């Protein structure tokens, strides 16, 4: 059985699982304890198959055709290096999330677990479809099915108005983006009407139509990925969704947009313009900075993570943009380096962000709170979740020795080569861009410290937090799977890079696995050991060994005595949960430093208030600069069109009359 057939079968099995779930939606135990773990198993199979295909298949992609679709345009399927990589990502992350989901969905919260099961597996299968599609129509069908199923997942608790609003916004942005993608395919077929990807590859236009196709695709995929300024749905939809779904959306679905953009720019369009790359880079950096700055000032833990997703997507886009710039300047090796960084970051982000979203899910289940201002001290009650989340936090902050650092390291490395570009402005500006990336990474650290510190550390801010319980067995299993991924990806980068080699070879015609192989398997040295090298394994080993040694040495030389007492707190006597920093307080320095980024509304208490309160609302200024004017324009349009409807027959007759006359005059002039 070819890998393609196996993966296709897996997608069908997902569908079947979903249908089973919908059919037996009353059998709660069956749905959660059998179907979801089965889905996880299928996901693991997908990951393994795709990985094997990636490592073994070489240059020849597997293709197949399904007797479905439009006449003359049956569903074309194809498994090549790029799709195999993303399928691997999908399978690996979905396995963890499915395991977690088996323990997560409960009765009586939003839709029934049976329905969730259907939608969830439909979501998985359609993502698989997106990655396998080899013609525009199938791609679009899978793409929109993905949007639709995730929309219903997001709105599963639709009795809450906020969630309805989030779903609404999400689906609109997704659909308008999808129309953009569709038009991009239309433009790319170059007037031939051949919508298979093979056809597009041979017929793709050059010149302005190619650029138009690229821009449309950028808009479409950017909308799905959360690229500035199309990101607004993301911080709304991710918090609204049940946590496994947030994890899936953030971890995997956003990556399908990356996949689509890569497919279009590197595979389908024959020639890349350097300014595409510059545009992507600029947008990516702006998105990354914007995302991270906003993520630091959020008070809702899932919104914080959602903005952090925007940041990471920005970084990935920046990497792709840089790669495009290199590729357009015929520097394939460097393009491969930047692309590897971007793809690696996709993988990393998928793992650590899913992990964090799932952790918030457990917190949510245990406390019913998403608001950071009402959490705190959960490390005592939920040690499993807290320690596993800590791994996610460290990875997400881009700190060694976990995975987030590796991809950021690669990205920075690729930026260091930009002085070799033959563009005056670019090679002056790009080092600054590297600075922006460094700033983003550092701010991500801030956001993550805030997230972890406020949720898990300190004292509980509410009474009922004392009753919080740790994650269940299945949930833990899912969390451990993802956390293990974070560690392994960080420690063994060379394996990942070897697996990425066929992908970059396929997309930009170069890979540097051979160069990396010159070092030992422990050492990541993409160009040469002289140039730069890093080893997560040694790093982690060294750190752990030293810490342990230190611990025992200190114990041995001195003693291990310990007494518990009240906190010192500079002698301040009234220590309570309320004296800690709130989430808003922790974000205050950022609000101060980046004040121009925000739209801040403050309500200060006056000295005469009986019940003084302080309120601060930090808004996304893009709402006010872009979306509200847009909404106003549309409203204006509807009002103008509404004026057509006068309700008077004479006026309606007049319309007909004038139309007739105008046409007559126009025709006989």
């Amino acid at each position, binding site marked *: 059985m070819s890998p393609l057939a196996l993966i296709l079968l897996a997608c069908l099995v997902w569908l079947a699982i979903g249908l089973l779930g919908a059919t037996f939606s009353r059998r709660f135990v069956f749905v959660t304890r059998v179907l979801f773990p089965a889905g996880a198993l299928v996901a693991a199979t997908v990951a393994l198959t795709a990985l094997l295909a990636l490592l073994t298949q070489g240059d020849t992609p597997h293709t197949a055709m399904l007797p479905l679709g439009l006449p003359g345009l049956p569903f074309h399927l194809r498994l090549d290096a790029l799709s195999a990589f993303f399928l691997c990502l999908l399978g690996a992350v979905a396995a963890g999330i499915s395991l977690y989901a088996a323990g997560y969905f409960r009765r009586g919260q939003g839709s029934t677990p049976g329905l969730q099961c259907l939608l969830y597996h439909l979501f998985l299968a359609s993502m698989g479809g997106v990655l396998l599609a080899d013609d525009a129509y199938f791609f679009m069908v899978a793409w929109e099915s993905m949007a639709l199923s995730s929309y219903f997942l997001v709105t599963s608790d639709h009795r809450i108005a906020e969630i309805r609003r989030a779903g609404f916004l999400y689906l609109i942005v997704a659909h308008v983006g999808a129309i953009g993608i569709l038009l991009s395919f239309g433009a790319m077929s170059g007037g031939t009407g051949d919508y298979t990807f093979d056809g597009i590859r041979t017929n793709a236009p050059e010149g302005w139509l190619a650029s138009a196709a690229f821009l449309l695709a950028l808009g479409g995929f950017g909308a799905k990925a959360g690229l500035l300024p199309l990101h607004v749905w993301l911080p709304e939809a991710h918090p609204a969704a049940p946590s496994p779904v947030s994890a899936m959306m953030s971890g995997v679905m956003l990556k399908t947009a990356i996949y689509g953009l890569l497919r279009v720019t590197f595979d389908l369009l024959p020639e890349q313009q350097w300014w595409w790359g510059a545009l992507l880079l600029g947008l990516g950096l702006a998105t990354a900075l914007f995302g991270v700055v906003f993520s630091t000032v959020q008070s809702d833990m899932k919104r914080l993570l959602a903005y952090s997703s925007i940041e990471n997507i920005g970084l990935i886009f920046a990497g792709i943009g840089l790669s495009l710039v290199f590729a357009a300047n015929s520097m394939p090796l460097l393009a491969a380096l930047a692309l590897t960084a971007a793809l690696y970051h996709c993988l990393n982000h998928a793992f650590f962000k899913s992990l964090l979203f799932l952790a918030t899910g457990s917190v949510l289940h245990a406390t019913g709170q998403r608001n950071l201002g009402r959490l705190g*001290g959960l*490390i005592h009650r939920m040690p499993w979740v807290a320690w596993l989340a*800590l791994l996610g936090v*460290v990875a997400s*902050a881009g*700190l*060694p020795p976990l995975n987030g*650092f590796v991809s950021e*390291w690669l990205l920075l*490395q690729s930026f*260091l080569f930009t*002085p070799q570009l033959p563009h005056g402005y670019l*090679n*002056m500006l790009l*080092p*600054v861009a*590297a*600075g922006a990336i460094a700033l983003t990474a*550092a701010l991500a650290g*801030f956001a993550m*410290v*805030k997230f972890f*510190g*406020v949720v898990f*550390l*300190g*004292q509980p801010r509410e009474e009922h937090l004392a009753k919080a319980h740790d994650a269940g067995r299945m949930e833990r299993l899912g969390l451990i799977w993802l956390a293990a991924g974070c560690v392994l990806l960080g420690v063994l980068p060379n394996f990942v890079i070897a697996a990425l080699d066929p992908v970059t070879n396929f997309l930009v015609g170069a890979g540097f696995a051979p160069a990396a192989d010159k*070092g030992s398997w422990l*050492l990541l040295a993409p160009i040469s*050991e*002289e*140039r*730069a*090298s*890093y*080893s997560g394994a040694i790093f982690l080993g*060294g*750190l752990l060994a030293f*810490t342990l040694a*230190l611990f025992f040495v*200190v114990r041995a030389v*001195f003693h291990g*005595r*310990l*007494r518990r*007492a009240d*906190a*010192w*707190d*500079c002698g*301040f006597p009234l*220590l309570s949960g309320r*004296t*800690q*920093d709130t989430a808003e*307080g*922790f974000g*205050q*320095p950022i609000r101060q*430093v980046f004040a121009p980024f925000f739209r801040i509304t403050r309500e200060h208490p006056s000295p005469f208030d009986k019940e003084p309160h302080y309120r601060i609302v930090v808004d996304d200024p893009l709402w006010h600069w872009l979306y509200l004017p847009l909404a106003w324009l549309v409203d204006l349009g509807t009002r103008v069109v509404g004026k057509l409807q006068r309700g008077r027959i004479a006026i309606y007759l007049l319309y007909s009359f004038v139309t007739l006359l105008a046409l007559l005059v126009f025709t006989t002039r």
Partner: protein
Amino acid sequence: MSLYAFATQLLTQLLELLIALALAPLLGGWVNVCRARLQKRCPPPLLLPYHNLLKLFRKDVLLAHNASSLFRVAPYLIFSCMALAAALVPTLSTELLFAPAADAIALVGLFALARVFIALAGMDVGTAFGSLGARREMLIGFLAEPALLMVFFTASIISGSTSLATIVGTLAHHEFAIYPSLAFAGVAFTMVSLAENGRVPVDNPTTHLELTMIHEAMILEYSGRHLALIEWAASLKLFAYSCLGIALFFPFGIAESTGPGALAVAGVFLVGKLAVGGFVLALIETLNAKMRVFRTPEFLGTAFLLAVLAILVHLLLEGGR
């Protein structure tokens, strides 16, 4: 790699680590002595830091009721990070066993890792001062980190590598050239170091005034061996930064081999340079007053811009290669 080379590199590496561990408190003591002298005060004993550490190690740990396991793990982890960082900087020789495992960027990452953990530890007990210190520390961190990276980038672009050994090797030995960009980078680096080590214009290591402290606020709840480790880690950090400055901007004298002779010479150079560096630090601390916390972003922003400028100057004046 031959076994001999491996062994010598391992030995050099261990030597560096030991030197760092041993000399770090001394550097702190030296700075204090210098500062007292400059301020016409009676100086504390040079070896006082050692004494303090020993005293703390001997004491019991007094732990807040609310402290979690993270709080107890953090000091060890932070200390390891700083020790590794100090060991990674080529102070004596560029031929270090573990140098390939971490380059300049990883070094920055290592500092960041320590910072994240100390901030988390500060938030753990849930006191007002702890979280205040944590957020200020992170504020300084997110501004200082990119600036430091940009300084490294300048050096990396000059030497075509991010590996610290290669950078130092290039700057110290291979060719002699005057790099105007390094002047900018040097100033930026100095500013970053001051901020990162909690030195005077940004923080005051000797203060315990609640509203202005940063580093001290985070570690208020620590006591006994935990506190000792953290204090030691802080001095290691100062040491690592000093060595970095020396390696980047005054790299002459660093050995490129692992021969005992070369190492001895390098050791002498190192001690001399550190003494000068400590004095300069004390001078800066004496001449400046501590600024308000919210002036720090401006201070560090300037550092960041200077570092960026350094890169641009390099690309413009030095041909970009």
